């Protein structure tokens, strides 16, 4: 598949002001402020293939949202280049945004006091959607999200989940080729999250490319083909989800339930890394150094085990280690 997004040496620098706490510092900063230059995004390059779902991960303040905003054309880069669908997003903004959609989990595009259907009608006029296309798309989207009645209630009375579903509809009525999602499932309950993920998967199957920033690793595990990790404004990982799982090597997590408390720091030479309590311990086995079969056989001598499970290394553990390295 061809690349739909190409980013080269992208940098975004901000100038901000720093001051200490307290009245004296406030007074001092009133007369003289200490300027601080922040590299929100620092020389990152990547490309994204058409028709994929790409997850952009990173801790708070890593530069994910700044990257998404530059990809949407809302912010001008300080240096570097972005090519999306053949456009330079910030320079060609008015033409470019017609072909993309965006959902910002913490910023609403709906008008607060009136029902979403009125906001949709406004977007219909803005994007010049024909009556037939509008009706077809609206029926399809309200059906997918199951919000046929919800769109006629004032936005201010909707639950967060209902509002987010309507935000999705608002940004997809014009059938965008690429959709940027900035923390789309933030604060949602499991049912709403699953519904949104289902719709993203469905639309992705129909050819829409999604770029997604999130702190919810389930979003990434369930949706993303590729993952880019940004930390301190720099790209620290850029590959497939499968590759991310093995980035720390071939490791497995073994959870043991014991009949007697265990307070040791290792079992048969494998360190205990976590446990709910002294009756539940977890071990991380590097299978390149020791096969799972060999280790499980060695546990036969450890007579206190009442239950055992073997699983892949949890994604949050992998991500945390990449963040901290």
């Amino acid at each position, binding site marked *: 598949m061809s690349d739909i997004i190409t980013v080269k040496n992208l940098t975004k620098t901000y100038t901000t002001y720093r001051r200490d706490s307290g009245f004296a510092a406030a007074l001092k900063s009133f007369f003289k402020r200490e300027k601080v230059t922040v590299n929100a995004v620092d020389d990152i390059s990547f490309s994204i293939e058409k028709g994929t779902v790409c997850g952009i991960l990173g801790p708070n303040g890593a530069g994910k*949202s700044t990257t998404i905003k530059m990809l949407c*054309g809302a*912010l001008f880069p300080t240096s570097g280049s972005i090519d999306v669908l053949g456009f330079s997003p910030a320079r060609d903004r008015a*033409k470019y*945004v017609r072909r993309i959609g965006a959902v910002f989990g913490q910023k609403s595009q709906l008008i607060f006091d009136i029902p979403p259907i009125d906001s949709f009608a406004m977007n219909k006029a803005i994007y010049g959607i024909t009556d037939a296309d509008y009706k077809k798309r609206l029926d399809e989207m309200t059906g997918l999200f199951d919000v046929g009645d919800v769109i006629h209630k004032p936005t201010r009375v909707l639950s967060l989940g209902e509002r987010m579903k309507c935000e999705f509809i608002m940004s997809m009525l014009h059938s965008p080729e690429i959709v940027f999602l900035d923390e789309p499932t933030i604060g949602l309950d499991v049912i709403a999250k699953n519904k949104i993920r289902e719709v993203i998967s469905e639309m992705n199957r129909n050819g829409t490319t999604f770029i997604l920033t999130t702190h919810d690793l389930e979003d990434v595990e369930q949706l993303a083909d590729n993952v880019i990790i940004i930390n301190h404004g720099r790209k620290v990982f850029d590959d497939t989800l499968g590759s991310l799982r093995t980035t720390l090597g071939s490791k497995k997590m073994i959870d043991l339930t014991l009949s007697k408390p265990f307070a040791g720091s290792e079992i048969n030479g494998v360190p205990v890394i976590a446990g709910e309590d002294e009756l539940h311990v977890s071990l991380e086995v590097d299978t390149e150094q020791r096969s799972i079969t060999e280790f499980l056989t060695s546990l036969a001598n450890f007579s206190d085990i009442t239950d055992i499970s073997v699983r892949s290394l949890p994604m949050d553990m992998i991500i945390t280690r990449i963040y901290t390295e």
Partner: protein
Amino acid sequence: MRYIKIYLTCVRVAFSQAAAYRTDFILGNIITLLSNILFPLVTVVIYANGAEFPEWSMWEVLLIQSVFSMSTGMSAMLTQGILWTTMDHIREGSFEVVLLKPLSPLFYLTAVNFSTGSLGLFTGGLVLTIVSASNTGADAGGIPVFLLLFISGTAVLCGLDLVMAAITFKWVGNSRIPEIFDSIAEFGKYPLGIFPKPLRIFAAFVIPVAVVGFFPASALLGRLEWYMLVAVIPCALFLAFGIWLYDRMIKRYEGVGG
């Protein structure tokens, strides 16, 4: 055609939005209308007590002030909302929702911020203009020039709104700045002759607020002077400057931490 359709849709949405709080909508318009009627009462009181603006009758001064109100109402309908919306977006770092629309941000904000509440101000101004004009023997032949100057005056007020809105991209949270510009605009409510000469030049050509009320009213009263027509040029320039500055400042938008 597309832009007219978008504008009309946005105006319809603005009415739906205003109508969502019916009492607030009705009360807001009544209060605006009353305060608009009360302001000229000061002029009536001044003249009732024997004081006056030299060479200007009470109805003539009332005409200036009602044209000023009409122009203020018109500009408020068009651009006043842009100032407060921009200020909110910059402070909250949500201006990207504007930039995501495939339109000029300025056009989009003008359309979605159509202020239904300012209809009261415009209507009140219009009624008072008709009443005042009928009491002064205003000349109907002056209406074309009146309209030209009225549009020019409204352009000045719109330009002021845009300049103030543009400033918020740099100085976030400058909610008191409109007060300075409101004070400057006040010069347009009175006969220009009562001010010292430097102030007259300032109000006619630098920030041409005299075109908001005084010049159009003069056209209706048959008291038009050549320099009043020249003031149309700085009015157009002032609006153009506001548009240019706003577009330029959008590039400075930086958002907030996400």
